[in-house]
């Protein structure tokens, strides 16, 4: 008995046994809570006379969506399009905001970040004030500010603010811009453009390889743009200029209800989209500016001095010494800012810009009432976008990382 209990004690106090026992406990607790939640949910659903299933996706949707890239791409029509279409319209509009926002926020953010390091106090303090204000006020408030307080006081639908000498116009119904019309054959021009990009990429790889082997590369600075422009341009001319433009048309004469911008000319960016884009871009730019500033400061001053003492010019020092090292520090937090921007685009639900959360988890959910399925679809969509982006950025990060011996 005594020996037995000693063995038992040794057995129980074995770290491996404890680990396994603890993990079994965790799995048991998890399985129990999952079962408990599922059981509750199924009972509740039964009591409310609902069932699980994705059959609603083929039903037709009966509500209006304002004109956006998504409705244009999927030819949205009330009473004809299904909830699957709504889902994809939502994703398209979310991605549209995300891509445009990332591009603009990066440009502004890098600019402001460098301004904060300037030895010109005007630029420095302007950038500092911008960053402090933007970062310390909630994004949703900024969104409301742009939508209600700025875009809300634009001229009414029968008036306009002319921009670029009448090429575009702005009023409370949105920003009107020239729209491209693709004629048959434009696809080929697009293919030629892609092909020229691939050729340029291959050329730069060959040049880099030659540079690594012999120390002499080609000067590609002018060759690549020339290559792209000539290949695309020649195809464009051969296909007979398959691209037309329609310009927004503003009438201030005639019957009063027909004044204002005409429906069939040009394209319109709805004010909701402008507000979301402005708010997201300026907000994220404030964070990117801080990341850029921190990244550049983190490159040791000795690196710059060493480069100067080797006789490199300041522009080359910046391009070959400072930026590559700063980028290594900048990229990981920059990725999470890009992801934040994408996720924050869901705030557009507050001003009814038709993105994923707004039309699918909002309007459509109210119509269909399939909470579990629809929220699951929305969450997994964002999750997949996040995972793809972070895998890609991890891969990129691993590529630019210093190879340590």
């Amino acid at each position: 008995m005594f020996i037995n209990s000693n063995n038992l004690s040794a057995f129980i106090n074995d770290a491996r046994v404890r680990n396994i026992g603890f993990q079994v406990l965790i799995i048991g607790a998890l399985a129990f809570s999952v079962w408990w939640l599922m059981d509750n949910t199924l009972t509740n659903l039964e009591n409310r006379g609902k069932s699980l299933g994705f059959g609603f996706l083929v039903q037709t949707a009966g509500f209006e969506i304002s004109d956006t890239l998504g409705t244009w791409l999927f030819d949205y029509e009330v009473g004809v399009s299904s909830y699957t279409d709504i889902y994809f319209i939502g994703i398209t509009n979310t991605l549209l905001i995300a891509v445009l926002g990332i591009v603009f926020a990066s440009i502004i953010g890098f600019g402001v970040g460098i301004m904060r390091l300037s030895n010109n106090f005007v630029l420095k303090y302007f950038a500092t004030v911008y960053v402090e204000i933007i970062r310390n006020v909630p994004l949703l408030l900024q969104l409301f500010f742009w939508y209600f307080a700025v875009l809300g006081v634009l001229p009414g639908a029968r008036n306009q603010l002319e921009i670029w000498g009448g090429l575009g116009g702005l009023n409370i119904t949105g920003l009107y811009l020239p729209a491209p019309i693709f004629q048959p054959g434009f696809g080929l021009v697009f293919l030629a453009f892609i092909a020229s990009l691939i050729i340029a990429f291959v050329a730069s790889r060959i040049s880099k390889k030659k540079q690594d082997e012999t120390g002499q590369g080609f000067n590609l600075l002018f060759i690549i743009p020339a290559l792209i422009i000539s290949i695309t341009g020649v195809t464009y001319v051969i296909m007979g200029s398959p691209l037309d433009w329609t310009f927004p048309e503003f009438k201030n004469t005639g019957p009063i209800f027909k004044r204002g911008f005409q429906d069939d000319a040009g394209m319109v960016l709805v004010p909701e989209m402008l507000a979301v884009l402005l708010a997201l871009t300026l907000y994220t730019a404030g964070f990117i500016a801080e990341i850029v500033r921190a990244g550049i400061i983190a490159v040791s001053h000795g690196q710059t001095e060493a480069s100067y003492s080797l006789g490199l010019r300041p522009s080359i020092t910046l391009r070959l010494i400072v930026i590559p090292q700063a980028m290594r520090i900048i990229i990981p937090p920059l990725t999470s800012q890009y992801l934040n921007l994408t996720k924050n685009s869901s705030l557009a639900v507050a001003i009814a810009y038709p993105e994923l959360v707004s039309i699918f988890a909002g309007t459509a959910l109210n119509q269909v009432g399939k909470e579990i399925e629809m929220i699951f679809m929305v969450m997994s969509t964002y999750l997949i976008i996040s995972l793809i982006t972070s895998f890609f950025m991890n891969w990129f990060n691993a590529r630019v990382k210093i190879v340590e011996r």
Partner: protein
Amino acid sequence: MTQNSHNSVFVRKVDAETLPPPQNEMGIRGWLWRNLLYSVTDYSSVSAALRSLAMIFFTVLVSYVGLTQLWLLLDFVFFSAVWSDPTGIKREACWTLSQGGTLPDDWHAACWPFIFAKLKFLAYGPYPMDELWRVNVTGLLGLAGLCWVLIEALPYRRLVGVLMLTAYPVIALILLTGGASEANYFNATAYIFVGLALITVGRLGQRDLLGIVASDFASIIGFVGWSLIVFQVLMLIFSVDVGLKPVGTGDWGGLMITLVVAVTGIVVSLPLGVILALGRRSNMPVARLLCTIFIEFWRGVPLISVLFMASVMIPLFLPEGVNFDKLMRALIGVMLFSAAYMAEVVRGGLQAIDKGQYEAAEAMGLTYWQSMRQIILPQALTHVIPGIVNTFIGLFKDTTLVSIIGLFDLLGAGKSAIADASWSSPVQAISIYLFVGFIFFIFCFGMSRYSIFMENKLSKSRSH
């Protein structure tokens, strides 16, 4: 000989007088050179001249934009603003001539009487007017406790901190809701007896009176017993009728609900985040996997969808008869969401700790929890204080999102104030958004300054 050498060698006995710095390095002129003129006066080569010209262009442009915007803001908020409404005409006080008011037609500035009239609503939402002292007392108690903990010169900081984390939430909840919740005294008594029994078993087990297995799990059993008792006693305390009028959370609003959501989220997310971070770095594959999935899931989805989920799916998850109100559901969503972000910050701190610290703790014979509590976590958490404060700021700003699922937080109260037709005017929206934005700015800016102050202090203490 020595005498001679002394005579021939000049030995300076007094320091040479320090020369003043060059004129153009001093005073306003020097400051201007360093901070403005260096960047715009280099014309020694073509590229330098181009750069200088570009700098001049940008400087002028940015000064122009900055100054005009600043002037517009000051003019809007102060100089042109309407400050009072002595005759009580409400919205017409902020109308221009063409709108039927008395102000000139090009007037566009803040409407302060509107904000003064809505101040109480912005602070408390629809909370009953006669009971506002309860909110004020809660707020002042919280503020006093917070200041006590943060100011280093005061005594008993640890005691006050513990009270703030234990007694204060109970007092606050009773004051804000009025207490007197329903309680099942029979069940509560039964649970307390079960708890006492468990504690007894735990105690016996720790003295090796029940064989080895019990002694091993004695602490866990005792812990379960204690939590059972604490929970039931709390329920009983909340059920005591202290004579306050009950106020449901549906009547909470304004800055008050913003602070409630933010503070609860902050207080709960930190310990939860620490546990998740430890789990993610644990050497047990199951715990590691689960914590990683949990963290990456919440970090991968937007808070809005989390709040939507909390508001429509939590009622489905709970057994019949159990019902959480809207605020509780929003709080659960915010807590889980911010715990995941906090976990990543804490994980950063854990990774920054030298491996030798872990090994030394192990070599001293400390158990896992002992080494975490006494060696690793104190270092890791102080390391990431700036990150933690940044997460707090983010959480504070994110509380505005609860207005989307129908709670009247500060921003939501502002929005419903705008909907008040008796004050409707074109400047209504912009006035209130600027005011609410200013309040948020003060809170967030204050927190970020505190984080910079802590960072500087810690980096000094580390360099010693």
